[in-house]
């Protein structure tokens, strides 16, 4: 609560891993009491995984925020230093994005033709597309975006 530190997000990532593991153990022991087949998720597993997913997202964006915005803000303008490596990384990611998008369309066409829906692969490819987009935005902000930290009076005229 004091500053934008990486400690809590890191701790959240560890806790998220613990919750996913607890969901796995729940499936092995507690959920089995209810007669759940291993491939079905029990309510307990869903709850643990939902909190695990939130903490995973929170931990990741917390570390990204620490990387991109720092621990403390200082008023002023900060200009990025141009360099070749981020451009190369961006080009590679765009190529990867194009390849994944093509593969995703091919996967949908395959499902439509055969009626076979490999959901894990569809989720993996679509999710990967989105993660590549997130990485591109991150690279843009870190290496190409002009940063500015401002101060503002407490009393504003917006929205009223």
């Amino acid at each position, binding site marked *: 609560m004091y500053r934008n530190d990486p400690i809590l997000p890191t701790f959240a990532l560890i806790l998220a891993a613990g919750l996913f593991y607890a969901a796995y153990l729940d499936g092995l022991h507690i959920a089995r009491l209810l007669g759940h087949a291993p491939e079905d998720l029990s309510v307990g597993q869903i709850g643990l995984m939902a909190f695990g997913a939130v903490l995973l997202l929170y931990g990741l964006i917390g570390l990204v925020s620490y990387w991109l915005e720092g621990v403390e803000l200082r008023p002023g303008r900060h200009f990025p230093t141009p360099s070749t490596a981020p451009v190369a990384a961006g080009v590679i990611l765009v190529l990867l994005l194009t390849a994944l998008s093509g593969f995703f369309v091919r996967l949908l066409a395959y499902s439509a033709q055969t009626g076979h829906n490999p959901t894990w692969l569809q*989720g993996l490819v679509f999710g990967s597309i989105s993660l590549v987009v997130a990485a591109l935005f991150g690279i843009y902000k870190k290496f190409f975006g002009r940063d500015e930290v401002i101060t503002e009076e*407490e009393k504003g005229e917006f929205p009223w």
Partner: protein
Amino acid sequence: MYKWLDERLDLTGLYQKVLRKAFPVHHSFFLGEITLFAFIVLVLTGIFLTLNYEPSIREVKLPDGRAVPAAYGSVLYIDSLPFGAVIRSLHHWSAHVMIAAAFLHMLRILLSGAYKKPRELNYLVGLGLLGLAVVTAFTGYALPYDNYAVTATRIGYGIANSIPWIGGALAQVMFGGEFPGSEKSIPRLFSLHVLWLPLLLMGLIGLHLVIMIKQKHTQPRYAERIAPGKILGVPMYPQQMVMMLILFALYVGIMAMIAGAFLAHPIEAFGPPTPNTPAVKPDWYFLWIYGILQLIPSSWEFRLFGATIGPEFIGGAVVPGILAVVGLLLPFVDTRKDKMRYMELPSEHPVRTSAVLALLVFFLMASLAGYKIDFQQQGYLLGNTAVLWTLVLGAPLLTFFLTYVLMRIFYGEKEKKALE
């Protein structure tokens, strides 16, 4: 083009007034954004689902010859579409994530004291949003109309119906008649789930954000040192917007992978409703209420002004009601005279921090009590009602005292040294 639009719409004025708002930076603010993005994904995936879903229990024939309710059949159809099962699973997971994120967001508000003056009203709006999110998720639970969902929803119907004086009317409004059985139930739950409750949620989310913009965020404590009395942050556009886009892309990426790998509610495995009731539990966010219902003896029943006050009402409505009243009164009990500008550190408020941790342990222990019958069947000690009562009441008290003592030992010494 920009000049043409600017001359007519004063876009520069909009940029200066709205898009250059200072947005304080702290990772804990992202919990609210995760809740918002889960809601956006719910709306987007929900649009696809409504285009293919049939809210009816009339009998239809599947291509394999089975006769099933139309609602159940239409969900099987959605699952058979390319990427359809992943979209439905993403919708299901996003509902769980929205509630979990809203709950953690509320914990952050409680731990940092952000409900104090001048943010009492927005805290109440937030509490309302959490409650409404749970109700909205509940109304969607029965829609696939499979054996599991119908049985689980029946528990909620029983609780609504058990509320004295108004229970019958409330159950009628929510379920359109007896559930399961009434033909109006699914159309009623459908209209509540896809129209009225989301509209109410959108309105409350808008109000929550507008009040937040007016009152500003509680800032991280260091901001007091850098820019005292002012709001220190990054402009809403483009910087904060880029961070939001990164989080949204991360959300969609991670949740799509989870949704694809773990189909949350495989209705083909559960089958359409049958007279045989499967062993079910309500969703995890109702499990603590279900646990209390398991502990309250059936003899706790009496008559009051012509109505029956039964164990279902006491466990399902009175206990959550007491917690809700405490939550509603909190900002008017734990107050401060001056305007709150910066987040309070949990270490400086041992009583409040200990109470929040005790509340968490209470929820966990009450949820554990939801497995009472299963533990009994296996002959575990946890199947004993007295043991569970001890855990539900004793563990939170122990947590409170232990946390308080530890915080006094570690942070009390620190404070003493700082004063010296």
